[in-house]
């Protein structure tokens, strides 16, 4: 199953990466095993998002920058408004990084 490494940049992914870094540096973990854990995280995170998350969000804002490179869209929004069912958030500047969902299903 193909996975994205995209989600490693999320909070949970960064926490895992830091943990693995520390453990590899202290010698308790081999780098190979650390990578295996990260790959498993890619899978688990993707599955969890598909199966466990149902919420919908709408995003509005001024598009400051757009970029499409290597099948990855990057948007930088200014004065963005995020709305979901029960709350909304205003953000002065936000970056959106999105991989092509079709790459996973192939």
């Amino acid at each position, binding site marked *: 199953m193909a996975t994205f490494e*995209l*989600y490693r*940049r*999320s*909070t*949970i992914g*960064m*926490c*895992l*990466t*830091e*943990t*693995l*870094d*520390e*453990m590899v540096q*202290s010698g*308790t*973990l*081999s780098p190979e*095993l650390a990578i295996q*854990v990260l790959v*498993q*995280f890619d899978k*688990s*995170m*993707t*599955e*969890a*998002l*598909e199966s*466990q*998350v*149902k*919420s*919908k*969000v*709408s*995003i*509005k804002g*001024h*598009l400051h920058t*757009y970029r499409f490179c290597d099948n990855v*869209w990057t*948007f930088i*929004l200014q004065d963005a408004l*995020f709305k979901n*069912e*029960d709350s909304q*958030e205003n*953000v002065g*500047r*936000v*970056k*959106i*990084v*999105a*991989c092509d*969902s079709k790459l*996973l299903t192939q």
Partner: protein
Amino acid sequence: MATSSTTSTVYIHVIEDVINKVRDEFINNGGPGEGVLSELQAIWEMKMMQAGVICGPIDRSSAPKLAPGAPITPVHDLNVPYEGTEEYETPTAEMLFPPTPLQTPIQTPLPGSVQTPLPGSVQTPLPGSVDNSSMYNIPTGPTSEYPTPASDTGGSTEAKAGRPSPYMQPPSPWMNQRPPLDVNVAYVEGRDEADRGASHQPLTQDFFMMSSGKRKRDDFGAQYNNGGFIPQQDGAGDAPSVALQASQGYGSLGRHDMITNANIEILSHATRQAMRIPQLDGPIPDPYDDVLSTPNIYNYQGVVNEDYNIANTPAPNDLQASTPAVAPQNDAGDDDDDEPLNEDDDDDDDLDDVEQGEDMNTQHLVLAQFDKVTRTKSRWKCTLKDGIMHINNKDILFNKATGEFDF
């Protein structure tokens, strides 16, 4: 709240899922064993709790699972210093900053003044981890600490305004304790303290060296013999206004009477202005002494000065390079040693600011997959799915998202 609890639930599920699925790798094939796996999970979950993205109560349910299997205590021991850099640095800095433990009343104001520079200096060595803490720790714990670095320019005024009055008392014990201190000794000590954390301090001292060189060294010697500590605080406040006050003091009145008053004023000024002034202040002395005769250059320094903070050093270098006369003069100046120090300090500050700024900019992040992205003239529409948003220090997951942007 619903979203955050859902996020927490999903995260915990992911952690357990990952741990369960890599268990084979850890136990078989000469892997490091179950203990290391439990350690991994414990550290991971701890970091997540520190980041405030999983809730403590929910995590307790998984805690008993950990307890039998793993050396949890060593895990926490390992990480206490690591995570604790923020929390422990404060007391440490307190211990370091005032050289004597006597001033219990000061310690309340001092941590504040120490904290402001320190987070910056800590961020440099530990970019990854501190990024997280500065970004994420706000919901978790020490909320009070983080607004300080974040709103450095804005909030500092209020924070410092409160400080001076309690801060003014301590100098007298210091003075009494080390009356024999030479000015030079004081500088050395100041340097040490400055190296430990407050990046602005060297500037201060340099400025003082400069001014003392310009004025009568004896005056300063007599004046600051009283307290070796004062000159450091002083320099930052040695903005034009304070300098004027001081110099007027020497001229019109007897030196000794005015001195204490001037010290006090300077101190209070210094504590208020210590953070902001040095950056503006720093570049001026050298050109002032060395290049004063060439007004053009001085204008450059004066006018462009604020831009340096934003644009960093390259611009001034270019400017100076274009006028060949400048470089030799600066090089031939008396204070070669001071010059790089000043500039480095500014650079550091700038970098910190820039880094913080970038952190602020990239702090809000959406990671997702796109189904479709379309554009009609300047109107963009996109549909995203399976996303993780980190916005306003909250993690929000979504299954679908629609975006409408105007370019």
